[in-house]
């Protein structure tokens, strides 16, 4: 009886249009869109790479001092800059052709010319500002206490030469991957559709099918558990397909703990289905109303987790509702993927997994308590 119900639950869900559209086609389409929109931004602009810079020297004395600093920067481990010494016209041509990111002009002070605002431009601005500041310190020291000048120059040179690309962590720092984590969270929460079907199709007062099942000799608990298991399998398949597409086709870096990423995705799907089961079990509303509720709840939770606007998550974290995203399934799912990608240790990841498990258990328990009724006051 269990396998009979289980088998037909899977067949049924595989033929539900909403399941195919929202759990299979939609994530693939939106993932492709994300990749098209954000994919190159990181590679071209954000990811650390050497910043080519043209240098025009108008003041020979200062130019020699800058060359020494520049040499240190170029020779450092994970060097962030490379310098080309040229004249003003050639430098402007190279900037126009995007062969260099900026032009440093050495006069009494350094000045910077860039063609556009970007992280690399910001790095150059920082370098120039720091150099000018240090130069001022050295000049002031030479005026006030010449004996200390050598020591100050040595110290400041060492400080500048340590400027290099430092990753924030051991993991993937592409902030745009957050959108793919959110996308996976959304796919998981769209699994509410499958959970909703189970609740409605097993309750005598919600559907003719439910009433028909209630008068059959199959115990309701057995039927519900078989249906839930079938749904979890379908939801897991959808999550695995979405994740595999994101990793293999879109080539999104999901870190090097891939088995755990898959396990997280499956667990996330179970959270979504369980949530749908709970929503479907509450009250005597039409299927259409409950379906709309599921979609609305999923979207609101995803919005709060930063899917539509990444800053929302930060705003919630800073507000008095910071607790909300600690239990918001969408936020917890995102956080678990993020933790796997970023942190070496598993503390935050385990917290997320435990939260997901507890959330699922709570959802299923509420759903079962709501649907356990065997007789109805009205149909």
């Amino acid at each position: 009886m269990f396998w009979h119900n289980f088998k037909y639950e899977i067949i049924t869900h595989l033929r539900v249009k909403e399941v195919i559209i929202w759990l299979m086609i939609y994530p693939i389409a939106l993932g492709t869109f994300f990749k098209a929109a954000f994919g190159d931004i990181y590679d071209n602009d954000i990811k650390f790479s050497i910043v080519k810079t043209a240098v025009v020297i108008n003041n020979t004395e200062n130019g020699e001092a800058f060359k020494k600093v520049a040499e240190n920067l170029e020779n450092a481990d994970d060097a962030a800059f490379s310098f080309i010494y040229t004249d003003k016209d050639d430098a402007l041509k190279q900037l126009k052709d995007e062969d260099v990111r900026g032009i440093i002009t050495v006069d009494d002070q350094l000045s910077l010319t860039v063609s556009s605002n970007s992280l690399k431009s910001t790095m150059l601005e920082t370098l120039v500002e720091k150099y000018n500041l240090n130069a001022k310190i050295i000049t002031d020291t030479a005026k006030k206490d010449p004996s200390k000048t050598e020591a100050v120059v040595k110290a400041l040179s060492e400080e500048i030469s340590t400027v290099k690309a430092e990753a924030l962590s051991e993991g993937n720092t592409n902030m745009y991957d957050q959108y793919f984590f959110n996308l996976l969270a959304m796919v998981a929460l769209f699994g509410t559709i499958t959970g909703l079907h189970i609740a409605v199709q097993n309750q005598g007062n919600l559907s003719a099918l439910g009433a028909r099942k209630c008068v059959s000799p199959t115990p309701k608990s057995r039927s519900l558990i078989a249906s839930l298991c079938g749904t979890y399998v379908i939801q897991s398949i959808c999550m695995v397909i979405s994740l595999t597409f994101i990793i293999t086709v879109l080539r999104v870096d999901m870190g090097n703990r891939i088995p755990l990423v898959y396990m997280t995705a499956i667990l996330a799907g179970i959270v979504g289905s369980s949530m749908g089961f709970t929503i479907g079990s509450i009250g005597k509303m039409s299927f259409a109303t409950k379906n709309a509720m599921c979609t609305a709840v999923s979207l609101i939770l995803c919005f709060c987790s930063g899917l539509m606007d990444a800053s929302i998550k930060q705003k919630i974290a800073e507000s008095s509702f910071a607790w909300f995203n600690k239990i918001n399934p969408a936020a917890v799912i995102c956080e678990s993927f993020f933790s796997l990608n970023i942190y070496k240790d598993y503390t935050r990841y385990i917290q997320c997994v435990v939260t997901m498990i507890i959330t699922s258990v709570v959802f299923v328990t509420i759903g079962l308590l709501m649907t356990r009724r065997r007789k109805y006051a009205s149909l």
Partner: protein
Amino acid sequence: MEQTVVKIQNLVKRYKELIAVDHFDLEIKQGEVFGLLGPNGSGKTTTINCLLSLLEFDKGEIEIFGEKMTPTNYALKKRIGIISQNVAVYDELTVYENIDYFCGLYITDKETRKKYVDEAIKFVGLEDFTKFRPKKLSGGLLRRLNIACGIAHKPELIILDEPTVAVDPQSRNRILEGILELNAQGATIIYTSHYMEEVEQICSRIAIMDKGKNIALGTKAELKKMIKNTETVSIEMQQPDEEITKKMSTLPHVYNVEYKDGKLYVYCSGGKHNLIRILGVLQEKDIHFGRVYSELPTLNDVFLEITGKQLRDSE
């Protein structure tokens, strides 16, 4: 002695102030095709849902095959087949899969189930549609699928709740013939409907329900005997003058004469040769008339006389 299959005693079901089933009693014997006739909202489906332990009820006792019916009496549920008023099938499954699914809730052995499913498909004549999804079926075929899902496991008691609603005449006849065939195979049938012709056609015993009450119970003949009318003669003609209607009213066994919608209706209670005597009056006065009908009372007449309203008026 025939076994009592269903026994309902003093059943009361209230929806707040509304009494949907009002101290309802019923006893159905094995092998009967029992009709539950009544207008929409008379409490037929509510009674069935209480019988199946799907609805909570306020008062009363229900026994099926001598056992108390409860939601967890699975052994008893195995012996019952239900064809609900609303078609209850999966839109995503094919005809074959739907029947197999519902049969599988009752029959665990795969081989037996396959045999039963094939037999059910043949029984309802859906052999050519086994791979069709319900949405591709016409209203009549869909109803037949609904029936197949309810009877595939070969139940001893089959409850059909308005199974012919929105069904074409051809499918309706096929369904009614099928019900009689199931009965011939040994199943006890409970058939609810507001179509009196169907109930008259197939049911051996009938209960008429109105406002949750069992207002009449018996065989067709017994029910018809409960009322005064035994024959209604209707004649297509111009409106007769008062003298003619008075004369007809004085004829033996005539208890009412009325003219409406271009016809003269003469109601008789008992007696023979009423038609000859009525036409004699018209010939005597040399009054021309068109077609003449002599009709025996129907269940609608029974309902009309007991409740003062037509079965269909109440819909």
